[in-house]
């Protein structure tokens, strides 16, 4: 036996040494050579290709001249973007944004992409509707409006139906000669150039808000609120107002729910709740506790569902991640209870697998233990985990491997990496050497007997089937010994509705986008002019019919 082991080790050593020598003789890969020097290096043998490669470095041939580089136009006005992308077809769509109307927000494809001439480049333009409205001095409200200027309005609503009334804002008069117009704050005033947009910190913790408002001076006040203590429930000025760095921003921080009546009355006197919305984070595949803390601004509701994921893991959330939700709204998290973990029997009868499976079972939470789960006398068995959170479970490290594999179905659960930690199986490791030494001589004989046993079992089964068929034929009965195939149930066959399965469907409506199909540059320019100057057209309609 020792000689065999020595020979095996020697063989591995020789193989490893030869492989090392082969690898050392390989030239360095051409992919590590700069593209400009690659061809020369490849020709001179200074580098080599391990496998056939497709070289994507720019070549000086026709292929390169067939495509043109796409310039970056993000941040440019649409007209400028058109000027830069004259060799391509431009498709555009609009999106509400605080950027000036017609500014390119996104482009697809983006540099350094290359496209053939005439290919389509899609750009998303700002419609400018989220820009803060210009402010007008009170004395200017009675000023007569310019003839073709329509009043712009605040904060367009994406929803079409039931648009709530929005207060009209009077547009500043055009730059003219009267001295009173000096009091009008034009949009954007020159003084605004050094002012920055105040970020929205509603719903954040005090610490996060301070970090976010690093450029400003923060004044804190506390107020009882149903929001979690320490979270910002109001700010002044609110986003997207502009403020000079160093200017003070007043934050109202929740001090937690009010305990007495006076505080409750004071809370009633507060302004109405903030209607800001926050983007919902994706908390799937995180533990419930992590998800709960990540969604501190919301009311988190836990719903246990049957799942194959480990117990306590979030496997679904409603509303979906990325939704815009008001702080304090209810968020439902679907948390797996781990009850549908797929059983794996391979290796479950080995000591290590049994131990790791027991540890996995302990980590996964409640496991239905059959009544026959009686450990052998004299062994120490860890209590069956009956708690639901992994942190509260007792590690089943003391469970003997045999007891674990025989008594609990959890022993067949998949072994997880954490279940194989050294502290999970101290008793096993002490007995392993003796067991392996005892079993080693039996291995060759068992291996040799396997084919014989298999053939014998098959013959036995065939004889039994033949005997059964003869007996049933002689007694007048027919038995179907053909393998049965379970076909899926046909929909036309009347199936009794299973009351145990219930469905509830709903539709989550998404945003819509519009894209005008440009046929020529001229038409495009006309459209652009029209879209950017529709106020004048609307006013013109009023004049005609007024």
């Amino acid at each position: 036996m020792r000689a065999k082991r020595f020979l095996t080790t020697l063989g591995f050593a020789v193989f490893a040494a030869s492989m090392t020598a082969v690898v050392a003789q390989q030239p360095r890969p051409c992919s590590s050579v700069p593209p400009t020097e690659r061809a020369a290096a490849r020709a001179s043998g200074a580098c080599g290709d391990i496998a056939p490669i497709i070289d994507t470095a720019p070549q000086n041939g026709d292929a390169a001249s067939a495509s043109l580089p796409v310039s970056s136009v993000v941040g440019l006005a649409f007209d400028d973007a058109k000027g830069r992308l004259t060799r391509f077809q431009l498709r555009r769509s609009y999106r509400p944004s605080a950027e000036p109307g017609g500014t390119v927000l996104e482009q697809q494809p983006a540099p350094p992409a290359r496209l053939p001439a005439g290919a389509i480049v899609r750009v998303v333009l700002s419609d400018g509707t989220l820009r803060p409205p210009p402010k007008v001095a009170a004395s200017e409200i009675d000023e007569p409006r310019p003839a073709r200027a329509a009043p712009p309005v605040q904060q367009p609503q994406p929803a079409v139906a039931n648009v709530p009334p929005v207060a009209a804002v009077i547009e500043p008069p055009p730059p003219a000669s009267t001295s009173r117009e000096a009091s009008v704050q034009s949009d954007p005033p020159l003084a605004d150039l050094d002012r920055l947009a105040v970020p929205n910190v509603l719903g954040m913790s005090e610490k996060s808000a301070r970090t976010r408002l690093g450029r400003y001076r923060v004044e804190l006040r506390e107020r009882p609120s149903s929001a979690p203590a320490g979270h910002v429930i109001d700010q002044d000025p609110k986003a997207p107002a502009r403020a000079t760095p160093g200017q003070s921003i007043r934050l109202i921080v929740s001090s937690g729910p009010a305990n007495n009546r006076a505080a409750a009355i004071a809370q009633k006197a507060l302004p109405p709740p903030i209607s800001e919305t926050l983007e919902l984070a994706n908390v799937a595949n995180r533990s419930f506790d992590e998800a709960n803390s990540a969604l501190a601004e919301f009311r988190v509701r836990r719903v246990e569902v049957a799942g194959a994921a480990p117990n306590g893991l979030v496997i679904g959330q409603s509303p979906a991640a990325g939704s815009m939700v008001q702080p304090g709204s209810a968020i439902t998290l679907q948390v797996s209870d781990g009850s549908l973990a797929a059983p794996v029997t391979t290796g479950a009868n080995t000591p290590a697998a049994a131990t790791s499976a027991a540890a996995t079972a302990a980590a996964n939470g409640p496991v239905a233990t059959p009544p026959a789960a009686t450990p052998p006398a004299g062994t120490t068995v860890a209590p069956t985990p009956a708690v639901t959170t992994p942190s509260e479970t007792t590690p089943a490290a003391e469970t003997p491997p045999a007891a674990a594999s025989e008594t609990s179905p959890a022993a067949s659960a998949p072994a997880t990496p954490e279940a194989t930690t050294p502290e999970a199986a101290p008793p096993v490791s002490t007995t392993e050497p003796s067991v392996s030494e005892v079993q080693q001589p039996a291995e060759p004989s068992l291996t040799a007997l396997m084919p014989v046993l298999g053939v014998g079992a098959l013959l036995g089964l065939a004889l039994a089937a033949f005997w059964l068929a003869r007996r049933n034929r002689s007694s007048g009965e027919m038995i179907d010994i053909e393998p049965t195939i379970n076909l899926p149930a046909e929909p036309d066959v009347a199936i009794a509705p299973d009351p145990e399965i219930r469905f509830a469907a709903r539709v989550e409506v998404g945003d819509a986008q519009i894209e005008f199909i440009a046929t020529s540059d001229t038409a495009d320019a006309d459209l652009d002019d029209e879209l950017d100057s529709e106020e004048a057209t609307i006013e013109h309609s009023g004049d005609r019919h007024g």
Partner: protein
Amino acid sequence: MDDGIKLGTPLDISHDDVERALLEYAKDEPAFSDAHVPLRNAAQRAAAELNRVLDVDVLEMLRRGWATVPAVSRAIQLSAVKKAPPVIIRLDEHCVSSTSHLVLGIDVAQKPLPELRLALELKADVQSATLAVREGRIELVALADASVVARLKYKSVLLKEHASGVNGAPRDPFRNQPAASERRTSVDFYI
């Protein structure tokens, strides 16, 4: 005109579509694999439930797209705050697309399984549309040569695709008449 316009032929989800979706979903969600067989038997009911909520109102989808056009958006806002006769807006050839989600909640033995989310992509190619904006709402005056493609998907797996014209809107009486000043969007008169 506000009755809505529907797909020419409804996007009828069959039990086969549901079965395929469940099959794909079971690959991603092992919790489904155990309940897959009984759920397949109930696929017909699931399809009926999905069809019940799947009332494809193309006009509503088009309205959401049209509302993103700056001219239309501002007309909506203006008409919401100022009582005035409707504004007529004509849009030339364009394409409106949207993605909604059909979410199927499943309870087996009063225990909820992870929801099955199907994406419903709608893409409408419109040759021209004439809209009236009044009191903060878009009303469709006329729609010419519009077609809608609806695709039902589970992730990237296409379960059903259906192309159709739209029913319920008259043809655009202005379709052979160039828009004012040859512009592709025009806002030029009241009705």
